[in-house]
């Protein structure tokens, strides 16, 4: 079914390793952006403190 590219990958274990490594690095980058933006938002809101007080803080910027 995937004979074509398997032949290429099997013939070259080094390429196989590189493919796996690149994939994992990219997946980690994506995950970092996902979690990073949520963490950033959490930190931003905890820095401001909750409640109505910070709405004026936001407004006065």
């Amino acid at each position, binding site marked *: 079914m995937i004979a*074509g*590219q398997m032949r290429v990958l099997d013939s070259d274990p080094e390429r196989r390793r590189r493919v796996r490594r690149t994939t994992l690095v990219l997946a980690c980058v994506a995950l970092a952006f996902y979690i990073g933006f949520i963490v950033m938002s959490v930190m931003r809101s905890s820095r401001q403190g909750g409640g109505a007080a910070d709405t004026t803080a936001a407004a006065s910027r």
Partner: protein
Amino acid sequence: MAEHTHAPAATSPAHAVHAVHDEHDHRPHGWRRWVYATNHKDIGTMYLVFAGLMFLIGGSFAMVIRAELFEPGMQLVDPQFFNSMTTMHALFMIFGAVMPAWTGLANWLIPMQIGAPDMALPRLNNLSFWILPFAFTLLFSTLFVPGGAPAGGWTLYAPLMVQTGDAFPMTIFAIHMMGASSILGAINVIVTIMNMRAKGMGLLRMPLFVWTWFITAFLLIAAMPVLAGAVTMLLTDHYFGTTFFTATGGGDPIMFQHIFWFFGHPEVYILILPAFGVVSEIIPTFSRKPLFGYETMVYATASIGFLSFIVWAHHMFVTGIPLAGQLFFMLSTMLIAVPTGVKVFNWTATMYKGSLSFEPPMLFALGFLFMFTIGGFSGLMLALVPADYEYHGTYFVVAHFHYVLVPGAIFAIIGAVYYWLPKWSGKMYDMRLATWHFWLSTVFVNVLFFPQHFLGLAGMPRRIPDYAVQFTDWNMVSSIGGFAFGLSQLLFPYIVLKCLRSGEPATGRVWESAHGLEWELPSPAPYHSWGEPPSEALIARGAAH
């Protein structure tokens, strides 16, 4: 043709070898071929068919919009349903039509163009496609749940979005699925380009379609997770008591817009960069002349990709961001005009002193060139903050982004299909009909969108189902253009189906001066594109410059 210096593809030694290998392949048949698909061409085909289907559904949403806007007063739909239509139209067109169409083209072309047998991660490829039908079934089904489909606009702005009914979690889950699909597709593209290039296919020998997709894939990997993060926070705001974007709980509605547009602006370049690649392939072929300034094109694309991450707040000039921020984002936005201008000039210089012919792919590429430039002009006007105070949120913006997306991205996709379809299918399509398709599309896309500039400048806001009577005339013109444009698009599936059923056999080269590895393969291209890597001589011959 006489001046054509390349040997006919059929004598290429590489694919004589290749054909032998092909016979060993045992491919699954029937439904298994598609459900268990790991072949880049099968997956590419599914992506393209899916995109076409979504284009028709998203287009029919647009027809509802244009029908209601044909004249003032509410004649057809409830305002809430109208808002659902604008929202669903955008979501289906962006995530369902344009992005999958580009991924489909990437699947079909990248392995062929870099001398690889297939994508690097074929099973992941299968997964990233098959997520999509489920995501869009889920999104489509929101039309039938209590509260109706999402109606907060594709920008999903909090706090309005939180007022969505039962469709809320469904929409968010669907967006998560689309995002996952895009990220997996992007990972596959990058991994393939980095690891599967044939020996001798240096980075600066890659065709521009590969280059633009390479950069697009990085944008996807950085941008899509940010959207996922934003909608996750919307979800927790709604169900788990967080107040990320709820002012009464100390949250910040503007924060949502910052996060959304940090995704949203790269997203618009995700939609258009592969179009730059396609046009950069088509124009040289039909100008019988190599692309002018290949390396400049690569660097311009890369700098557009980089700049796309530092302009997001130009969507937010009227939210009250500080003066320094407005100045920064105005200047960074204007800066994008420079590499974009370079690209337009390079395409023009490619045609200059060429030998032009006007087959359908070239027509669509030229349509792109003219009308994308018009969209670029209105984009430059929108970048000026004081002027944006009048343009923002009006039909001027609608006209602007439709000029870059319809005669921009969509024309490039159609042009790409007309360019490579003979290679994929081994058959020629009816060029006369395709030329008709071009002229009808071009005339009516302008009838549809040009008057929207007038409407916006005269004061008509976007996303309204009903309007003051002075806007009637141009809305009628726009609606007529819309219906005619929509109808003309039905020619497209007809032309493709007719080609597949009864097209004349195509040659390997298809277009006399087409360059690139894919044209060295026979038509139709073999199931595993380059089972044996192409020789370096072949690569050098195919290189565009």
